[in-house]
């Protein structure tokens, strides 16, 4: 029998995950208050919040594969929180760009976004993620209807690669592709697993048995 937490256990798991996911933010706050962000604090915050956005996008995308492999189906109930944390960190990332890089000069910022594909790609991913964040509530799922909601939220399959492309372009200046390649491989694997389950997984296996019907997500 795969492990299934009781209602009370699940509450604790969720609370612990919430606290863990908040740690990177608290660390930034602590560093800011104790003057440990280095010579270029803004760059530090921008890079760090960008990194954590990518980590949370990967974690969110990992829920379905993990659930299928472990049969821990209750994991799905943690997915929304992970996705919202990805949004939380990208909002922080965007705020540092808007505030510190452009000092709320919206016209300057718009020019920057339009002129530079690197920023345009990141900005597009951010805007798409907003639409997922605002439709993440139960009420919105009901209002949109399950099917339509699911289609909308498949945008994550676009958002994650856009985020990595944005990161790739940033690192290209440093000629250092190790990290973007790693992120690319992880997201690529997570997406390929879905394709596999959708197409190959539905085929009869050697033993002649059918595997679980592909679940969305």
């Amino acid at each position: 029998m795969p492990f299934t937490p009781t209602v009370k256990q699940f509450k604790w798991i969720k609370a612990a995950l919430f606290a863990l996911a908040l740690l990177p933010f608290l660390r930034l706050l602590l560093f800011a208050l104790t003057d440990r962000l280095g010579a270029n604090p803004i760059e530090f915050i921008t890079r760090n919040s960008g990194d954590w956005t990518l980590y949370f996008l990967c974690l969110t995308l990992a829920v379905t594969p993990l659930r299928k492999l472990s049969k821990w189906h209750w994991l799905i109930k943690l997915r929304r929180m992970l996705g919202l944390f990805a949004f939380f960190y990208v909002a922080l990332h965007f705020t540092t760009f808007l505030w510190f890089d452009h000092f709320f000069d919206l016209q300057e910022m718009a020019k920057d976004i339009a002129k530079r594909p690197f920023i345009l790609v990141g900005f597009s991913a951010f805007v798409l993620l907003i639409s997922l964040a605002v439709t993440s509530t139960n009420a919105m799922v009901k209002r949109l209807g399950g099917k339509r909601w699911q289609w909308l939220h498949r945008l994550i399959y676009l958002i994650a690669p856009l985020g990595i492309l944005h990161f790739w372009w940033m690192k290209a200046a440093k000629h250092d592709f190790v990290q973007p390649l790693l992120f690319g491989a992880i997201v690529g694997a997570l997406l390929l697993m879905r394709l596999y389950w959708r197409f190959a997984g539905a085929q009869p296996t050697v033993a002649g048995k059918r595997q679980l019907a592909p679940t969305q997500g």
Partner: protein
Amino acid sequence: QKLGAKANPAYVVMDPPTAYKDATTYNNFYEFGTDKADPARSAGTLKPRPWSVTIEGEVKKPLTLDLDALLRLAPLEERIYRHRCVEGWSMVIPWVGFSLSELIKKVEPTGNAKFIEFISLADKKQMPGINSPVLEWPYVEGLRLDEANHPLALLCLGMYGEALPNQNGAPVRVVLPWKYGFKSAKSIVKIRFTREQPNTAWNIAAPSEYGFYSNVNPDVDHPRWSQASERRIGEDGFFAKKRKTLRFNGYNQVASLYAGMDLKKYF
């Protein structure tokens, strides 16, 4: 090690110098890693003494100088220069050294010498970053000979009144304040005079992004970000807007070197 240097009043800037801590903990020196905190952490393995610099190529008097001979080559001056990184940040640094032209005079370039090439140390034992393929090693930089002879071009042996810290390019580097920082080669072991334009490290790595000249120019953007403004380390950021970047980083006295050249093409 303290270096006795007289301040050169021709080269001062009104902006306050960057904090020593910032200037020595926020560095691009890929031989010690690509993160800007890496050099301060891992440059301890670099041995700046004994050190020698070989000067060769199109010169009448090729020469190998050890560090003491370099320090005695010309009177040491302190010059306060603005320093602009291609990444969009800047500092103000009091360097110690003398005009590169003093060294050039000494070796007597032949009539064929049109360019000068700076080759940095590439020793796996001293530099952990050499194991990474981010750039071709050794790090090579270069200038046209007339650029190298400009009095602003500094052969640099120290900063803040002391010998160069390892992470800042010990024991000898160049400083070219009108160009983006990566042109100012660090930990130099060889200087070569050539007929042809040298292939420089960043130009090899990304020719469309980093040109041979790489003069500071607010009108020529990097493909991925604007060069119109910069963040002065320690000053601009949380509560102050970034400042405008100046053409040639404010050193207009070099403009005549590029008279008639299309600086958008020769970026």
